[in-house]
């Protein structure tokens, strides 16, 4: 189960930057092994904390502009956006509990 959405270069501003709720953005790609491990963990977070945050996935391969804009050079990269600004970043696949701690401000 997942409540995660996808965003593209074209929709990023609407889906992420203008979101009323804080947004956890997962920059990922098909070829990236750790990204495939992290996907289901963020899916879980999207369900469990659906009242608090949005989870949005960005395929860096298909959306180079937005990845370049945020200077992504390592994936998985998970950025927490709040009010259109980057509030916190996590590089590399981490266990669910790590995100719960790192993003505690918005997940509570």
């Amino acid at each position: 189960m997942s409540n995660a959405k996808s965003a593209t270069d074209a929709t990023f501003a609407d889906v992420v930057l203008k979101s009323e709720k804080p947004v956890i953005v997962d920059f990922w790609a098909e070829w990236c092994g750790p990204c495939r491990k992290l996907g289901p963990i963020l899916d879980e977070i999207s369900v469990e904390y659906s009242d608090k945050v949005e989870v949005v996935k960005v395929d860096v391969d298909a959306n180079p502009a937005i990845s370049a804009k945020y200077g992504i050079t390592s994936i998985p990269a998970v950025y927490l956006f709040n009010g259109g600004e980057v509030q916190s970043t996590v590089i590399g696949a981490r266990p669910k509990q790590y995100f719960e701690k790192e993003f505690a401000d918005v997940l509570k």
Partner: protein
Amino acid sequence: MSTEVTPASEVRDVIIVGSGPAGYTAAIYTARADLKPLMIAGSVTAGGELMNTTDVENFPGFPDGIMGPDLMENLGQQAEKFGTEVMYDDVTSVELEGAIKTVTLADGQEFKARTVIISTGSAYRELGVDGEKRLVGHGVSSCATCDGFFFKGQDIAVIGGGDSAMEEAIFLTKFAATVTVVHRRDSLRASKIMAERALKHPKIKFIWNSEVVSVEGEAKVTGARLNNLVTGEQSDLAVTGLFVAIGNDPRVDLVKGVLELTEAGTIAVESRSSKTSIKGVFAAGDVVDPTYRQAITAAGSGCVAALDVEHYLAEQDS
């Protein structure tokens, strides 16, 4: 095959912590011995180090090579086919003393068993220099297969001289304009076949006898400051990416202060066995091996641990 799940409260015969070649081989053997192993595979580390590699050409039985993730998928299927129960969770603590051991997961669940096999592998070693931590995700990387894509047409560096470093350097030539290998010594530690491939590669350059002193760059990597270990001269290497492959350290956090360790930091085992300093606790794979650290030696050592577990349980029951 049996898919029934043993209730959490029950005391199992064996719990395996870690899911690289050692863990999966231990699982295959203990499952076939009808010990119904429970494997705690890790939530994001499942499959271990091979999950981030590409072609594995030296694992016996695959004349055309096999992709690291495919090999791990196969091992996993083989372990589950014989009844291994796999949980994709992380172990946060272990109680190993006494006849019944307890393994606690990140969500608080506890599992008990008469034996535990620790096969937690090793973790990527950092350079430990200024700028490195700050620039992780902004040019500093430890995963060429994940991040090579971001360095199309750029000049980048690989730090290290072993097989992993050569594999990364060769892989990265698919994307980068040039790959400079920076190595502390004047020759490569890598196997001859990998070393020759790298040395002959038109896109790969070498800087010998040199170590990285600091990683430079404000928001992203712009270069590395190098120190020549022979002349003592410092120089700047202009690169936009730095892939670190200087080796691995055994992952012993769970058992530090509990199990005896060696000077190399690996779990100490008795002679050629997998027996640790605590009865009923066995260890296998990179976490016990400061020397060979191959997928096949890890697999072999997982088999040893499984047979040691069988023997130990049989002795306890007799």
